[in-house]
């Protein structure tokens, strides 16, 4: 296939889709499938036939729109009518009233406009709109036109210039400037060069990368192609969690389609540019998200990090220059190439441009997947997009950045979200988990929960992380059993900071964050546990209470 053919496919597909008056998009992502989305899809296919409207209705299987708590979700175009909690029984009514009679079924529509109002969708631009199993759908939305633009009109240096200018920073959590990383790999003389796309979303409570892969796999592939062209890589790997079967299937299909259209292979779009990629499966190790650990895992070894330098840009997979990027970063690339770095740099804040996807969960009215411009405040996310706390309970804390993020108090809700501001208050951007906690939670138990997680996930290579976290865990066990002493607070603070300073990789360096932030913002709860043996959430001291009850 040649460059010009792609344009033809796009035009043909747009005409093909225009022939339908309505398009019924049924979300069939991992969030909706367990709750019957596939049955809903089948019911729609049958219902449009039953009412004889199959020629004007395209029923499509799509990815996630983000409203994961009210699935299965269905969008009917034109007009973007979003139906929530659709069951196969309700499908006939929707087709009859909405499609045949032209009267949307109001009581089933998702009425919460606030959920979408402050969102801005760049990465998730096609999520919920296209059928991820059809490459034509992606092409019709302008897909693969960015790699065409690169190959036809831009030099690799030109591509890196645009990405640098965009101000894009790595979405995996650390926020390293993407353009800078690309030029490091491009300048490295050794060959072959590799690209590793990180889709090992190990943070419990986070599902943004999975949703992206399920909803728009070609956006990841196109991002990788452009990156490969810019840095001179010939081979790529997508490292994906084995726990994401649907995302794996979707990507496998996408790769096969891209190969068939010669978008991957020895001669991409019949140019001298050569690139192909493979999937590699993770196996449930949180630490494998760390960039040197992911390399060890792709090479088939235990995912244990190593000291840097040498940086992967110089010595990565099998000692060769390797570009490691999170898939969310890569999905931004086609948009940057199409619209220019300058355009992208105006979105978000001056130091952190663009958007960020967040998995919004916890005691909140509208949990789901959101994409917001950088610089939005936590208050807007929690109370406007998230719709506030469930059951109208008071807000207590918001955990930002996954199990090694920070628990922030109400006083910090007006903090604009970006890499730097979050780090300043003891949290991290991480992979974009926001968990909202109401007043019934116990912050000591919450910090203990995350410590337990990090103890289990520590790879054991360096002492501060391996032994230090176990010490911290022991202190927590004492406090929550009613055996805590006031010195324990100082000990937690000291050990936490020590682990942070002395650990080898990002896991150990961030693992004490929940402990340190709860100590900083919710210290009185620790004191209550130690002095008064009181737990506001009623989670701790259970053994003690049981013993007392038995004695009586």
């Amino acid at each position, binding site marked *: 296939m040649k460059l010009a053919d792609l344009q033809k496919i796009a035009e043909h597909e747009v005409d093909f889709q225009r022939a339908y008056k309505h398009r019924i998009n049924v979300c069939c992502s991992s969030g909706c499938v367990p709750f019957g989305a596939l049955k809903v899809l089948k019911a729609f296919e049958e219902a449009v036939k039953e009412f004889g409207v199959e020629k004007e209705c395209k029923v499509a299987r799509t990815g996630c729109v983000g409203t994961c708590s009210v699935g299965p979700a269905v969008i009917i175009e034109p007009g973007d009518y979003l139906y929530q909690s659709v069951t196969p029984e309700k499908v006939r009514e929707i087709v009859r009233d909405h499609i045949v009679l032209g009267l949307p079924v109001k009581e089933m529509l998702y009425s919460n406009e606030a959920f979408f109002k402050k969102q801005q969708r760049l990465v998730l631009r096609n999520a919920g709109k296209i059928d991820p199993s059809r490459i034509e759908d992606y092409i019709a939305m302008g897909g693969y036109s960015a790699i065409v633009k690169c190959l036809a009109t831009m030099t690799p240096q030109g591509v890196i210039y645009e990405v640098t200018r965009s101000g894009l920073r790595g979405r995996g959590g650390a926020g390293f400037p993407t353009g800078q990383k690309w030029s490091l790999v491009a300048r490295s003389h050794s060959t072959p060069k590799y690209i590793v796309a990180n889709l090992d979303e190990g943070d*419990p*409570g986070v599902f943004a990368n999975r949703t992206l892969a399920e909803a728009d796999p070609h956006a990841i592939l196109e991002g990788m192609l452009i990156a490969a062209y810019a840095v001179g890589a010939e081979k790529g790997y997508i490292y994906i969690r084995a726990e994401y079967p649907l995302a794996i299937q979707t990507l496998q299909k996408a790769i096969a389609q891209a190969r068939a259209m010669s978008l991957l292979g020895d001669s991409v779009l019949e140019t001298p540019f050569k690139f192909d990629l493979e999937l590699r499966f993770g*196996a449930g*190790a949180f630490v494998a998200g760390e960039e040197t650990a992911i390399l060890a895992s792709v090479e*088939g070894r235990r995912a244990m990090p190593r000291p840097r330098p040498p940086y992967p840009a110089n010595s990565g997979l099998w000692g060769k220059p390797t570009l490691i990027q999170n898939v969310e970063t890569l999905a931004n690339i086609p948009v940057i190439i199409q619209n220019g770095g300058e355009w992208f740099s105006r979105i978000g804040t001056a130091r952190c441009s663009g958007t960020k996807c967040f998995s919004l*969960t916890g005691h909140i009215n509208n949990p789901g997947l959101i994409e917001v411009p950088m610089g939005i405040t936590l208050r807007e996310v929690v109370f406007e997009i998230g719709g506030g706390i469930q059951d109208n309970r008071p807000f207590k804390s918001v955990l930002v950045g996954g199990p090694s993020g920070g628990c922030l108090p109400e006083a910090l809700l007006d903090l604009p979200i970006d890499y730097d501001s979050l780090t300043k208050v003891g949290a991290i951007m991480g992979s974009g988990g926001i968990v909202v906690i109401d007043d019934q939670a116990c912050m000591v138990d919450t910090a203990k929960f*995350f410590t337990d997680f990090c103890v289990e996930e520590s790879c054991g290579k360096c002492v501060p992380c391996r032994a230090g976290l176990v010490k911290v865990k022991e202190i927590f066990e004492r406090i929550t059993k009613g055996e805590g002493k006031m010195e324990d607070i100082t000990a937690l603070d000291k050990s936490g900071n020590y682990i942070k300073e002395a650990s080898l990789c990002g896991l150990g360096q961030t693992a004490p964050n929940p402990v340190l932030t709860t100590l900083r913002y919710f210290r009185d709860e620790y004191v209550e546990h130690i002095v008064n043996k009181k737990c506001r959430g009623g989670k701790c001291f259970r053994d003690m209470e049981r013993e007392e009850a038995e004695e009586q």
Partner: protein
Amino acid sequence: MLKDDNRKSMLDKVMKDHNFEESSLLEILHKAQDLYGYLDKNLMTYIATALQLPPSHVVGVATFYSFFKLKAPGEHVVTGCLGTACYVKAVDEIMTAIEHDFKVKRGGSTPDGRLSLFITRCIGACAMAPNIIVDDEVIGKATKEVVLERVRLALEGGGRRK
């Protein structure tokens, strides 16, 4: 040695497709677990020999990653999601109730091998938290009552939850 059967020939084929490369060890272990349900010593030794790796290397990799199971699971498997969102939504209470009612500990099986209780760190259905997986069915927004009833039904050999 492994028994000569269909599973073995499929495993052999996968190893051959990967050119017996060390870097494909994880893919091969995934496939082996798919075929056999779990990775026992015999199976890991077989893979080590085929890939010309020390058996300790293969065992080391298999034990590092929590996705790989080293023991046969019970007839019915209940998996509780202990991801952050599920933790916040008190999944622990449901897990404790299962442990209490069915006399099984997390990470273990009942002595008769009928029920295993496992933990997973996030299945990614966080907006539906808390999630419990009973056999292959994900129960979202799970409550103690629904889950206990569903496990009881599974053990009695009854049908799926409506």
